[in-house]
């Protein structure tokens, strides 16, 4: 991007996108906290919080106020600087990952092309892998700076787990990169709009899940591990090591860890949707609906495009929302692994399968089947 050639409007768009994404991501946290509480209640035959606001929706607000107004207590035995830094290091990478995820198709307005993506980096997927690796520093730092054995155990578990599963995650992504011949997420999404098989009137799109089913399972599992959610929530396994790395944190510092977890969940869900479910490609039926509306109202090109962007954002949100719900669903359904079993699963099962998947993908591409 040539910064010198940008005029005022370009600058506004350029700056508005990251701000918009940050604001949206911050909104995800209270909503997800609410979904988690009500969702777990639904699964467990309970009611869940239903007193504050309609359906208990304002419960998260009350929680946020509680978090912020609590005493910002720092135990005497911690290493001050790193202790303060760790929660920030946990949250920031989670936000940064979202920068490269496209949430709608391009919009041409007044001869300007607007990318609905904070940064259309040419390294795309590689950027995601590098940024998600950063999150582990925050956790290690928290465990070490807390000067507490349980916290240290938690952060050790976490670092081992994240490093192991990042390998699988990366290798699972290689399959996608090979299939769509690009590391840019926008290209991957565009690639998924192609037709894989034509079954009479129904065109099966070339979605990531159809061309990379094994990669999809590996990636999803790795995302669960990366976000420290059940069944991989060993770093904070409350019954074993109390709360793991955030044991010594309270008030908003603890809140930042929680935010980090939910934001990385949202990013993980967005990635799964983007890489394997066509990202912002419209849900089945939406394309037809869009065509009908445009035709019926005889909309000009710009308005039709705006409507399309709206539909695409809605599709993307729906897909991401489904995967976010899956995170909640899984958490309240299955037990957690043991530390060594987790390592075994990562290194002895998922890594070899991910490698085999790459070879299989290569073979399929060589044969021209996908």
């Amino acid at each position, binding site marked *: 991007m040539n910064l010198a050639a940008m005029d005022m409007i370009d600058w506004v768009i350029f700056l508005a996108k990251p701000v918009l994404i940050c604001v949206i991501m911050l909104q995800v946290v209270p909503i997800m906290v609410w979904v988690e509480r009500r969702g*777990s209640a639904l*699964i*467990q*035959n*309970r009611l869940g919080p239903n007193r504050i606001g309609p359906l208990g929706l304002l419960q998260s607000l009350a929680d946020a106020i509680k978090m912020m107004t609590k005493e910002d207590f720092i135990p005497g*035995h911690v*290493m001050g600087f790193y202790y303060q830094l760790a929660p920030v290091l946990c949250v920031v990478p989670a936000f940064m990952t979202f920068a490269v995820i496209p949430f709608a198709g391009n919009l041409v307005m007044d001869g300007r092309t607007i990318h609905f993506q904070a940064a259309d980096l040419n390294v795309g997927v590689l950027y995601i892998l590098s940024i998600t690796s950063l999150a582990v520093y925050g956790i290690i730092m928290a465990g070490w700076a807390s000067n507490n*054995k*349980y916290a240290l*155990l938690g952060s050790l*578990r976490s670092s081992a787990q994240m490093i192991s599963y990042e390998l699988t995650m990366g290798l699972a992504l290689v399959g996608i990169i090979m299939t769509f011949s690009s590391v840019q997420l926008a290209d991957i999404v565009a690639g998924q709009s192609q037709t894989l098989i034509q079954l009479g009137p129904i065109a099966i799109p070339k979605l990531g899940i159809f061309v990379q089913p094994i990669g999809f399972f590996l990636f999803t599992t790795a995302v669960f591990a990366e976000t420290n959610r*059940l*069944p991989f*929530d*060993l770093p904070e*396994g*409350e*019954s*074993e*090591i*109390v709360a793991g790395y955030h044991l010594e944190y309270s008030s908003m510092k603890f809140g930042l860890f929680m935010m980090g977890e939910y934001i990385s969940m949202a990013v993980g869900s967005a990635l799964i949707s983007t890489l394997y479910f066509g990202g912002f490609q419209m849900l089945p039926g939406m394309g037809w609906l869009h065509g009908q509306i445009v035709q019926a109202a005889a909309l000009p090109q710009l308005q039709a495009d705006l409507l399309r962007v709206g539909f695409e954002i809605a599709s993307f949100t729906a897909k991401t929302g489904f995967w976010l719900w899956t995170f909640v669903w899984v958490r*309240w*359904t*299955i*037990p*957690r*692994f*043991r*530390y*060594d*079993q987790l390592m075994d699963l990562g290194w002895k099962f998922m890594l070899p399968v991910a490698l085999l998947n790459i070879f299989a993908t290569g073979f399929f591409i060589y044969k021209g089947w996908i």
Partner: protein
Amino acid sequence: METRAEKITESLGLGNSQHYNITHDPDDIWDDSRVIINIGPTHPAMHGALRMVAKLNGETIEKSYCMFGYTHRAKEKLGENRTYHQFVVYTDRLNYCSALNNNVTYAMAVERLMGIQVPDRTVWLRMICCELARVIDHFICLGINAVDLGAFSFFLYGFHQREEAYTLIEKLCGARLTTSYTRIGGMMHDAPEGWEKEVKAWVARTRKVIQEMDELLTTNKIWRQRTVGVAVFDKEDCMKYSFSGPNARAAGIDHDLRRDQPNMFYKDVEFDVPIAKNGDVFDRYLVRIEEVKQSLNIIAQCCDKMKKGPIWTEDKRVRIPDKDVVHNTMEGLIHHFKFFMTGFDVPEGEAYTVNEGANGEVGFYIVSKGAPRAHRMRIRGPSVWHFQGLTPMVEGEKIGDMVAALGSINIIAGELDR
């Protein structure tokens, strides 16, 4: 320059380097420089105030020792200072998850010393109480074990039924947790009208829930990975550590006091005693699941067989005078006063009365010298033996397994410390 860590150790009075001397004593857990963590007495996995000090190598527990006594209330000594009637309330606080069971066992112990026979209805009612308590206790054990391994929903499914059972118990005696329902020679109240029907409806609902719980976890792959072959305590170990109840049956010891030394009317009801082989966490879980089902069967049979009738023995020594007699006659008032102030004398003798509690053998050993207070009272709580088995059970296992093992043997601090 002094480091922060040095400052801390100094402030704790540990600054002296001789404190860190390595003695190479194999029995000294504090020897050498491995990480030692203190699990408990306030730790989310410790059910009650229990403490384990574990020496870790990575995540593996190399050596450990357990401590208890944080909730010691001198129950047995209190038994020598309270009348037999007054002691009923203390039995609630032994295994508070199955308080009714302790109530019943204690009442039976005193009745045995006095040679009192209670009416049939009381016996059936007590059997229902025992089995209700067993179901409640097993629901807690299964649920908490699952919570410790991360399966929270499983726990709440059981807990819902447990709350309903407590509502049934509340209808009996007005209390939910600390019931104090039995009296020497009878019960506090008769069951209210239609109570048996409600119990049977509850049994039908609970059968479905336990089936659902069974299906949810028994075949779950992660659950099996976490429990099969974990914290194995085989037959010999169980014998050595005097295990009883479901924990012993999970290791293949075919022993159930309800069948082998039937008290009350246990020989008149049909039930199976589930046995497993391996004595690991998974087998303890399976045995408990099956025992809940069997207990539900027993409750249903008891409800059918329970007939209307008196609930108090005719023995004047122990029978609490009726309220209208107390309020309207002088003799009744005197009787009432004497009963609650001085208590009744229990003939000289000693007896050990056991009952199959939810966790194992619950026993009361009472020595009487003919006074209204016991001369010696000794209570056998199965958790004492089970807790001592925890150290050998978790040696060489991971921390996560320790949590699973502790949950599976169902240590109740009230019964452990007494």
